[in-house]
């Protein structure tokens, strides 16, 4: 869900939560979402996950911590990011840093989508865009780490419907490029591939590269700090429906996910074409600080 109209930003979380709930029957085992809210100049947000007292962690690290169930978001001055990451690794071995970025926060867990949304308080969150996913696992275990979205770069996330056949080969290549992976999941490899490409390419260029190098079937939705992109493989087995109005661009695996969005009856409804890169970005001057 990508908002063009900033007046809708306070409703972003509620709109996204409703979309996820509708698609429970497509993916009931786990769910997750990334949401791009406000950032603080000169600071980076780290989303942490683990079974610890995050308030105590925040006090020890001298950072502000906002707790969401077994996740917490800490806001760290850029100058201290490396030091804080080092302290977390040293003092809190059970805590994973699941995402980082100027604006992105990322939450995921095992369970029904509505329960996952409720645990993290998605309905109350605001922001410019959000990407959610409900998972029915096929290729790897049902775990929190295996839920989507995957993030392998700052403010970058990816969700995937489908499966990749050359992920082991691509993972080995990416590891030589210093992209690190936490799971054996194929989708994480797609995220890593795009993070690698985004080091030197724009989002549309990176997605075009993915067409040539990722083998398998997929519909990807990718989030960046400024926008989001959609890519379907050339055979397009996996469904996708989009709705665009003056106020937003919304993506769903099927129309049911979009049916309660505001102004949907007047939206331009379309299926993204196979092997065609779509992306929407907010102009730099309009991006939230």
């Amino acid at each position, binding site marked *: 869900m990508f908002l063009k109209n900033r007046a809708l930003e306070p409703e972003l979380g509620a709109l996204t939560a409703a979309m996820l709930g509708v698609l429970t029957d497509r993916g009931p085992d786990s769910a997750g979402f990334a949401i791009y809210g406000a950032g603080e100049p000169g600071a980076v947000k780290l989303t942490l996950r683990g079974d610890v007292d995050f308030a105590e962690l925040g006090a020890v690290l001298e950072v502000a911590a906002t707790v969401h169930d077994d996740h917490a978001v800490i806001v760290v001055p850029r100058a201290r990011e490396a030091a804080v990451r080092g302290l977390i690794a040293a003092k809190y071995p059970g805590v994973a840093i699941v995402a980082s970025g100027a604006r992105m926060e990322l939450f995921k867990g095992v369970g029904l989508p509505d329960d996952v949304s409720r645990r993290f308080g998605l309905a109350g969150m605001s922001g410019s865009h959000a990407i959610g996913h409900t998972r029915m696992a096929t290729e790897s275990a049902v775990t929190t780490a295996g839920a989507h979205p995957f993030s392998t770069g700052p403010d970058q996330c990816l969700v995937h419907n489908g499966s990749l056949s050359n992920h082991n080969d691509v993972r080995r290549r990416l590891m030589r490029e210093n992209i690190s992976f936490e799971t054996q999941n194929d989708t994480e490899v797609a995220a890593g591939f795009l993070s690698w490409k985004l080091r030197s390419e724009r989002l549309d260029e990176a997605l075009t590269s993915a067409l040539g190098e990722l083998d398998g079937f997929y519909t990807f939705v990718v989030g960046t700090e400024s926008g989001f992109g959609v890519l379907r493989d050339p055979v397009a087995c996996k469904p996708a429906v989009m709705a665009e109005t003056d106020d937003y661009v919304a993506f769903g695996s099927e*129309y*049911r996910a979009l049916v309660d969005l505001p102004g949907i009856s007047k939206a331009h409804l379309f299926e993204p074409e196979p092997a065609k890169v779509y992306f929407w970005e907010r102009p730099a001057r309009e991006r939230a600080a």
Partner: protein
Amino acid sequence: MSVALKLPPRDGVTFDLATDSLRSLNSTLAALAPETNQTAWQILNPRGQHAVAVGVTVPVAITIAGHVGYYCAGMNDGAAITIAGNAGPGVAENMMSGTVHVKGDASQAAGATAHGGMLIIDGNASARCGISMKGIDIIVQGSVGHMSAFMAQSGNLVILGDAGEALGDSLYEARIFVRGKVASLGADCEEKPMNEADRTILAALLDKAGIVADAGAFKLFGSARTLYHFHVDNAGAY
């Protein structure tokens, strides 16, 4: 047109999926006797639900007011079903007879495996339109996606717009009429000379669908029939 036809349909029934379940709709339609007087149905608030009005076996008219999800009007046998919106994957799949009219766009595999009847799509159809069709007539006023009429066995696929890649791949004896551009032909599909009999068939299909178009503006594609039989020169490939 007589005055009587303009009157509201006798014994018209409205079914609201916002308040009544899909299962009760489909079981109500399934329980209709062939001689039912409830011949006009209006279905409200489909909201993208799957399998709306599937398996109808009586000649009633059903209008669905909105977008539907997967497999709408599947297995239709005799009903005239109109979707006043877009249809999800597999609309009218395995239809036996009757008509299905999509006023908007249709997703993938429209009319898949259908044995008979007519499917009319006013907008575009996505990939694999008419895959494995077995006798249905499909009229698409817009364009179709890739791999349309894949392994199509019989019937007619009429495309007023363009066709995507690999049209008619592994085609049997279905006819494909295209007025616009064809991105590429699939294996064993070729353009055929269009004779008077073909033009008569096409004109009758357009007329039945209520579409005014010049049958002479279409090209005909069919099977080259080179994949029908095992060819001994290919033995090494197996």
